[in-house]
């Protein structure tokens, strides 16, 4: 029963289904980006599958792999109480060429998820009606959840005050020090000599 979606996908798309696996009752199919939207439409429209609920869409960055990004789609069928995960792989080592078809024409709910994935990972969804940043501001450069984005790099919208202006040190350590009885305090910023 749980293999049904994978079997039908394989029968329909043949070699465009790169790999499949099932674990704990959940099925995953990896398809070529070229059949991304066709496979999604098939999952929705085939009467034996009937995946009518869009659940989630996101992307994963594997910096050493080519293609580098995995776009992951979760859908659910109310009628059959089955869920399936559809993946595709895009992008080269530099993070260019991350284009994949938008699924908004298939499930309207994909709209904001694709915007978020574009915002955080830089996946370009072709055919999306309004592909803008959704969480970050338009001035932001780059895509922060890519593994090559520096973890502590900020892009302030308001220019920070200078230390001359403030008359005090302005760094990431609060004046009450790096430890206030919390395990996640910024202890490593404390100078070693205890000053």
């Amino acid at each position, binding site marked *: 029963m749980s293999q049904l979606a994978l079997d039908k996908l394989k029968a329909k798309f043949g070699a465009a289904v790169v790999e499949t696996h099932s674990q704990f009752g959940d099925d995953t199919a990896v398809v070529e980006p070229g059949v991304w939207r066709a496979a999604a439409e098939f999952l929705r429209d085939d009467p034996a599958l009937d995946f009518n609920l869009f659940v989630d869409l996101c992307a994963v960055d594997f910096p050493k792999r080519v293609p580098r990004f995995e776009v992951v789609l979760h859908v659910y069928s109310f009628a059959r109480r089955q869920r399936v995960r559809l993946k595709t792989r895009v992008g080269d080592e530099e993070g260019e060429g991350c284009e994949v078809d938008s699924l908004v024409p298939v499930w309207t709910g994909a709209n904001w998820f694709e915007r978020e994935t574009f915002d955080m990972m830089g996946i370009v969804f072709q055919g999306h009606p309004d592909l803008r940043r959704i969480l970050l501001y338009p001035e932001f450069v780059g895509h922060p959840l890519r593994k090559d984005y520096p973890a502590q790099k900020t892009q302030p*919208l308001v220019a920070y*005050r200078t230390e001359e202006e403030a008359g005090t040190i302005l760094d990431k350590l609060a004046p009450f020090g790096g*430890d206030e009885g919390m395990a996640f305090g910024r202890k490593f910023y404390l100078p070693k000599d205890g000053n």
Partner: protein
Amino acid sequence: MGELNRSVTLEGSESGFATTKLDALLNWSRKYSLFNYPFVTACCGMEFMAVSSPRYDFARFGAEAPRFSPRQSDLLWVVGTISQRQAPVLRRIYEQMMAPRWVMAFGTCASCGGFYDNYTTVPGIDKIIPTDVYVPGCPPRPEAVFDGLLLIQDKIASGVREPSVVKPRADPVAGLVQIRDTKVKAKEKTK
């Protein structure tokens, strides 16, 4: 409410006069009639609600009235994480306040960004606006907030504008808690 400063002297107890300096009198009245602007963005807001509601009740310290227009308020409570996207809003709110104005960084996130050490968050509101009092805690207990409020009142009475800090509780394990003397270090740095 409260007691007059020492600079106020009562003369001729039967005549009913009191003499003081105008500044001292003004500051005394300011410190007990703070109009608050709560800029509440995150979970610290729950503690702010505790502080403002009857169980802890900051009305006891003359800081009762919330004003939801920055133009009418004296004390800006920055309660919670300030994201980079919110920074222009906070900056504008601060600029709209009338002088004299005071700012309290409520909790670790407002003071230094907390554990959000990444692209999302302003690492402390002192990077964008002058800050008078830092209250540590994640979130701070209402007692710590009252310490901060009393510090603000001391600063209003004395006219000192250097940042001050509510002491965190002692670390029971390592005793690591230490207040940084950022002022002195800044001077050393400029030499």
